[in-house]
């Protein structure tokens, strides 16, 4: 773990490559998602599925490249907190849509 930190330290001494790569990736993913939608050339299911997957990738980029999710000594707990948050969020969204599909 210390090794990683040392590497990060060195990286931080110079040009912020990690951040620049993160920015380029996030802009690229955003534009791909936009293109999939406005080209109107794919089925609705494919369009929705692919933009959701792209959004999840974007979220991971923010968490790993910008937020340093896995850097501190408590990273296990940080990852569990965010992971359980996503688990609950998915349950809430999917469950609500499924349940409410049949009612007012």
């Amino acid at each position, binding site marked *: 773990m210390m090794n990683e930190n040392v590497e990060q330290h060195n990286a931080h001494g110079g040009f912020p490559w990690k951040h620049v790569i993160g920015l380029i990736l996030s802009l690229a993913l955003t534009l791909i998602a936009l293109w999939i939608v406005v080209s109107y050339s794919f089925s609705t299911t494919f369009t929705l599925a692919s933009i959701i997957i792209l959004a999840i990738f974007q979220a991971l980029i923010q968490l790993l490249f910008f937020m340093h999710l896995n850097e501190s000594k408590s990273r296990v*707990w940080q990852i569990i907190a965010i992971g359980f948050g996503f*688990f*609950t969020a998915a349950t*809430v969204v999917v*469950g*609500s849509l499924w349940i409410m599909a049949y*009612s007012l």
Partner: protein
Amino acid sequence: MIADIKAFLSDFLVLGDPLIYGADISIVLSMVAIVFVLSYFKKWKWLWKEWLTTIDAKKIGIMYIIAALLMLFRGGIDALLMRSQITFPNEGFLDSQHYNEIFTTHGTIMILFMAMPFIVGMMNVAVPLQIGARDVAFPYLNALSFWLFFVGAMLFNLSFVIGGSPDAGWTSYTPLAGAKLDPGPGENYYLIGLQLAGIGTLATGVNFMATILKMRAPGMTLFKMPMFTWSSLITSLIIVFAFPVLTVALALLTIDRLFGAHFFTIASGGSPMMWANLFWIWGHPEVYIVILPAFGIFSEVISTFSHKKLFGYKAMVWSMVLISALSFVVWLHHFFTMGNTAAVNSVFSISTMAIAIPTGVKIFNWLFTLNKGRIEFSTAMLWALAFIPNFLIGGLTGVMLAIAPADYQYHNSYFLVAHFHSVLIGGTVFGMFAALHYWWPKMFGHVLNEKLGKISFWIFMVSFNICFLPMYFVGLMGMTRRMYTYPEGLGWMPLNVVITIGAFGMGIGFIVMVYNIYWSARYGKRDKTGDPWGGRTLEWATTSPAVEYNFAHIPKVETADAFLHMKEKGTTGQISKAPFKPIHMPNNSGKPFIQAWLMFFAGFGLVFEWYWLAIPAAAATMLVMAFRSFEYHDHHYIPVEEIERTESATGRLN
């Protein structure tokens, strides 16, 4: 002009009901009495310095528990009023509106302002001591949590004398709770009061997760933690991920009522069932939030008074972890009867039944802990032993209710009422009473009287069964919940008479317990050792009550049941052994108290839609937070001489 004032007052104050006038008078009298006593004994400064501004978890815990007992009294009076109304057919003691208000406040208060502060109070009292820490991770936030809970509870309780109580049930289902069918401040009180308390609880969850994960004594790995600490960790986790849902649900209904949105209205495309959906996404995990700490307490008490190691420690932990995940995927079973498809109802039916498995594992672990143990029938142990069969009845009827097709018969009948009282009283309340007797010496330095304790236990426990067992049957006979009266000739009266007798019996049991608290404070045995029960965990390693900094030296932990191990090795003296080092402690602060009361006024403004009050109070709240952000000198060191003085006063320093 005078007519205007009259009209305003008749809306603002609740007029015309002798019961409410009685409450008005008693509230004013008790306020006057409190002010008089504080002034006469010159205790205002003491109150401010020792309690209102404290950020010591032990004191915050005590304040939570006092509030919980007061709310238990209020909720209990509500229950007795309801029972008085439906003992006999066609009674006219309460009218339907008043009855609606009372069952609403009874449910809300008992869950959110009694059970919640009771468990959070116990966590504050015991968790830092059990893990060998000096305080929680964020003591300032902890004080803010308490005061937010407190003002939320005050705001909610204010409703019945100012403006009128909420009357749409503790679940506050829409569209009944919407602006159209339920205008006026009553439901707003519910929404804002719960919102304030809920934010406080969410902060508590974050606080205790960080505390337990990061502040354990050296050597205390996760699987060496006391079981109550484990249950507090899992509870905090559920709080963190469930309470935001309540926050959103309450906010959306508030926006509906105050700003004309259409989330839950029938008109303009709103979805009334979405409220039930969101409410129970929070509501079901909430059930586990109030039961898991009780499980933790039973584990501690049963192990201590069986004089045996807890059986199946790892199974206990993993079953709780499993419960925490499962608790988020069962919520629909609260509204099977909304008429969903077979697929939806089946999935939630099965996931609900699955929770019985880890819970059953825990029951067997407690039984095996008792097996061949040297059982000591203390009051705390009696509550723990009574829990097992009583909770089992509630648990098994819960599995019956989980069968979706059968639920159409049980739903909203007294069978359901009996079920959730069996688990909530038989589980949570028994657990809190066990904890009260178990940790009382740690909180106050004296033991509660065992004889009075046992009298109150037997009266309460027997009355509890007299009250709730017949409810299952009257429910199967067709009596539904929330009906304010019933006609003659249905055959419900005899059982209802029995139920009411049981309810008043529980009231008597509670009075004996309160008398025990008074008696023991005056004459109870003082606990000089810090370890009155032959305890196994670290909270018994320090003095009773624990000193401000909990431990002069942080204990080193080698095994589970760390204090028992220290006693066996003869190293208990290490904690108070000189030389000392200065101890870093956070400063007391009045800001949490002030901020919470500002939020109270903001909330009160929203209840009456008085934005001239709500907006400045909310802005002032932000200002207090900004001041806090710029505060850098918020801690101090306790000098070595003071530690020496404190330690020799406890007789622990040689």
